[in-house]
């Protein structure tokens, strides 16, 4: 079990518990966190689960796959710490991770 803090674009915070192995996207959706649409349910097909990963956590994540990189390359408002949250699997090492949500996923 690890904690994830989601920060909405307007600053509202949502702290949720996620089982190891669950993705950050799944944790958001199952807890009804606004701002992560995840249209494709985690198939890395839509880029509607885009998040900005807190600087302290960026280096702890596995590198994005070629597919994720291509999807992000064409998503809107992408920054150097942008990731697709369906591709981030939770583990003890990520306990406390903070992710911020973009203004819109579309």
């Amino acid at each position: 079990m690890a904690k994830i803090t989601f920060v909405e674009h307007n600053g509202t915070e949502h702290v949720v518990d996620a089982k190891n192995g669950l993705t950050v996207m799944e944790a958001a959706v199952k807890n009804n966190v606004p701002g992560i649409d995840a249209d494709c349910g985690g198939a890395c097909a839509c880029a509607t689960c885009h998040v900005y990963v807190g600087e302290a956590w960026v280096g702890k994540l596995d590198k994005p796959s070629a597919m994720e990189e291509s999807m992000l390359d064409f998503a809107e408002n992408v920054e150097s710490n942008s990731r697709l949250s369906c591709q981030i699997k939770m583990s003890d090492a990520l306990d406390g991770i903070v992710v911020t949500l973009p203004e819109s996923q579309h």
Partner: protein
Amino acid sequence: MSVQEPMDPQTRVVILGAGHGGGSVAAFLRQYGFAGPITLVGEEPLPPYQRPPLSKAWLKGEATAESLALKPLEFYAENNIDLRLGVHAVAIDRASKTVAVSQGEPIAYDVLVLAMGARARRLTIPGADLKGVMELRTAADAEKLKTALGAGKTLAVVGGGYVGLEAAASAISLSAKAVIIEREHRVLARVACEELSNFFQSYHAARGVTFELSAGVEAFVGVEGQVTGVKLADGRTIACDAALVGVGAIPNDEIAKAAGLECNNGVVVDLAARTSDPAIFAVGDLTQRPMPLYSRSVRLESVPNALEQAKAVACAVTGRPLAAPEVPWFWSDQFDLKLQIAGMPFDADEIIIRGDPDTAKFAVFHLKQGCIQAVEAVNAAPEFMAGKQLVASQKPVARDKLVDMSISMKLVAV
């Protein structure tokens, strides 16, 4: 668009159908701060779940009931959503604003949301009721199919659409055999262009799927009530251990029609997902909806479509402005292929292929007067993502750049 007036906070919302669309209406209403009573009525025994993985991850044992669920079961109680499973609506009384249901008292509504989805089209041919003749819409269907897909078994798939191709690919990865029987001369005939059909057929054939094209199905034959083969119009019988029928779906719009709502291959709605009765909305596979981008109305069977309409309903109820219409999009996973489609090829006058289908990384662009109407991208995320944006903007593209995969998709607009 202008902000709508929020409805009375004690508005009673009743949602008929607890699939991806109905479940998402309830979730978005709570996300958007709606605090009034919500009743979510679903015919299946399960709380809302994702259907797309049923033909893929679920068959291969890579998904669980928990991972498919849109929300954990406790979500509904915690969010004061009265989830009634195993119950279906029988009739809508618009005058008294009540819904008669299969169990319990009629339910009163102020806002009614129809989300009954679509059901698999059935073949009315001899043997269609044999054990082992299946369809794939629900988790229960998928579980039955999974049981039938052991190593060495043969699955006959009637209908070469997405469901059939995905199920065939899953069967092969479970060391079963698969034969696809299609009435048209190519697979995906109704939903994809010829180039894409040819590509998918060859890719499947190279991995062991066999095809019977331009083949009519006369009957299912069986022994002791269990299907053993599919009899074709040319007299041959294709032996199988199970048969999956995937020949399209029909909207569950009967109670809407009976209630006098406007229907035309689905319940007719506007961009806000409102039906011809202002107190009744409809979302998802059930609806015939406007598609301003193409100046027509369509009935779509896709998760993004259901979610877009679910948000529209939540916006109407809570007084949020309606978002701009989205570009319709679809995806399919087969073997190691990811197909992503954005837009629809209405009125296209030109096809441009970018990349080489032989490398399993390419995209087919459908243009109308130099603007992209639709893109079908195979293992080609940039083409899909940029293509989707260009469908939305309708910016003309330079053909010489679009056709050249060495030129970034960021540079193809004129």
